[in-house]
């Protein structure tokens, strides 16, 4: 146990002191953190749905949970059920095989709900396009509120996209609970 504690102490809080090289990046992360907190007040629950991606976007969403971006520290967390979610974060071109599952996930998400299409494929079909097996962009299947392009978008862009979606939504000024 003391080894773990020693490692924790040795590591310190990496979210805070930015290495000189990444100063601009760190400032940006902090600004987005502050804005999100100001808007949300309490918390945002996200249900992520892979509707056909190559898994690249998922890895960058995972990165949001690392100590640098520390998304859970903001009260933004990923939930296991669409019934607990405020936002659907959808990746991939929608494969024909995931079309119905995506639609049902959307239907199961309580209103008001936000849908963010994440990554080039979700925005416009990406390199996979539309075909016998791919329905293309997410908005071909469910309504989309905001898009985050990139292949895959880096974590900072994902944070920006989430912020943009929350800001544009009329319910954005939700009271702190």
């Amino acid at each position, binding site marked *: 146990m003391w080894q*773990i504690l020693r490692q924790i102490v040795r590591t310190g809080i990496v979210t805070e002191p930015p290495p000189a090289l990444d100063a601009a990046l760190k400032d940006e992360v902090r600004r987005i953190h502050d804005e999100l907190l100001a808007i949300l007040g309490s918390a945002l629950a996200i249900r992520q749905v892979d509707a056909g*991606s190559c898994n690249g976007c998922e890895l960058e969403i995972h*990165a949001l949970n690392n100590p640098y971006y520390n998304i859970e520290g903001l009260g933004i967390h*990923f939930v*296991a059920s669409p019934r607990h979610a405020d936002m659907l974060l959808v990746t991939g071109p929608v494969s*024909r095989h995931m079309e119905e599952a995506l639609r049902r996930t959307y239907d199961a998400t309580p209103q008001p709900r936000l849908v963010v299409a994440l990554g080039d494929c979700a925005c416009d079909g990406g*390199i*996979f396009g539309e075909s016998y097996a*791919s329905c293309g962009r997410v908005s071909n299947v469910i309504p989309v509120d905001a898009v985050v392009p990139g292949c895959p978008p*880096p974590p900072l862009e994902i944070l920006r996209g989430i912020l943009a979606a929350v800001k544009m939504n009329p319910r954005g000024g939700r009271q702190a609970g």
Partner: protein
Amino acid sequence: MRFAELHLDLQRLSAPLPIWHARVDRAGWIAVAAQVAQARGRLLSVWGRSGSTGPSVCAAFATPEGLVWAELPLAGAEDRYPDLSDTFACATRMQRSLADLGGLHADHANDRRPWLDHGLWATAAPLATAGAPAGAAAGTLPADYPFVRVEGDGVHEIAVGPVHAGIIEPGHFRFSVVGEKVLRLEQHLGYVHKGIERRFTELAPLQAYRLAGRVSGDMTVAYAWAYAMALESACGTSVPERAEWLRALMLERERVANHLGDLGALGNDAALAFGLAQFSRLREDWQRLSQRAFGHRFMMDAVVPGGVAGDLSLSLRDEQRRQCDELEREVRRLRHIYDEHAGLQDRFMGTGRVTPELAARLGLAGMAGRASGQAVDLRHDHDWQPYRALQARIATQQGGDVAARVALRFDELAESLRLIRELCARLPEGGVAAVVQLPGHAVQGAGWVEGWRGEVLVALSLGAEGRIERCHAHDPSWQNWPVLEHAVIGNIVPDFPLINKSFNLSYSGVDL
């Protein structure tokens, strides 16, 4: 085994690894499989072709001497070929996919249920269809999949997916359990099938490396390299030495990034959130340097036909060496903590066990295979540059459980850091890309690369007019998904995420 014993008309492809192509008849098809099996070789992949030369079925066999790509041409209306699943268990799902995509069926195969086809496409056998198949038809529901039922006192089913609880690719798992104990697991995949192999034929050969790099996002370097190797071997392109070294550097960086991610996630799945925090921090540092050195956090589109997209500066090369030293110190400390943590070891030891015997019988591949005593690693087994110069060492474990797969990742991480340091120290000077000249006649090539998950294969056929006629990409997950069904038997349901993560198989890479 000697190739001469196969009595085949073998044609050597100009790839950096030994790869041979041969046309066979039905008797030859069966004989090659039997001889490879007898010599303890492996079946790597089964796929189909159609096109100017008529339909044919292909199989790739890996032997200690190299790879044999056997091709069995079928007469015009013939849509059957001899079943390989009796000799190689891993053939079953690949043959089922071939039936779905190419309309070619294995004779007398035991399992003929559709695999990739969920009954929703507007076109049957889309790869065998001339012209573009009709687009996705909306409004129909997937066909019921005939799962095998387990019956008995107190037995019930747990259905999971396709939308899982976590941030993970979609697939369906059907557990038959009694109490908490898993009696049987049956997988149903194909949910992220997005027509990749069809899409290849619509792209220009010099551009399609981008699609190859998106077969499976976490193996983008391995696939892009395999595709580039296939195209270069088809076109007889000779790649500058520096480019090959930079490719290996990226491949090892990809391996390290994924092992770091997995080690953190495995700690987390066994309730040590500390592990996730530490390893995900290291992974982030690692990815940021990849971005600066190669222009992308995953190094997507950095390997291109003929070489690599950009050169590496001296300062970024030195920074990578320093990062390796630093990372090695950190990982050594964390490994000690993992090894000494009783709670972690309690969850890891004996969980999701695949014995070396079972692994050999079922053809468990790649990293998971090496954790079950299967000493196969292309970087070590074949003379290809720069791995020959660096004398890459193979890591194996005998335990076959989650603990072994964790230990193997630590071992491989250390070796990759050594390789990266060597690659940086001895990086040859020179250009980083050659011009790829497409030949004006039909030609084929293959690429074979040891990715972090295991070996990937890209088999490419170009038509006379310089278009891609067929491009088949194979992921080691084909071999390993069925073995996961065995690894889970007798374990408890809550250990499934841990076992699943310890294999970390690709969905996109097999659904294609």
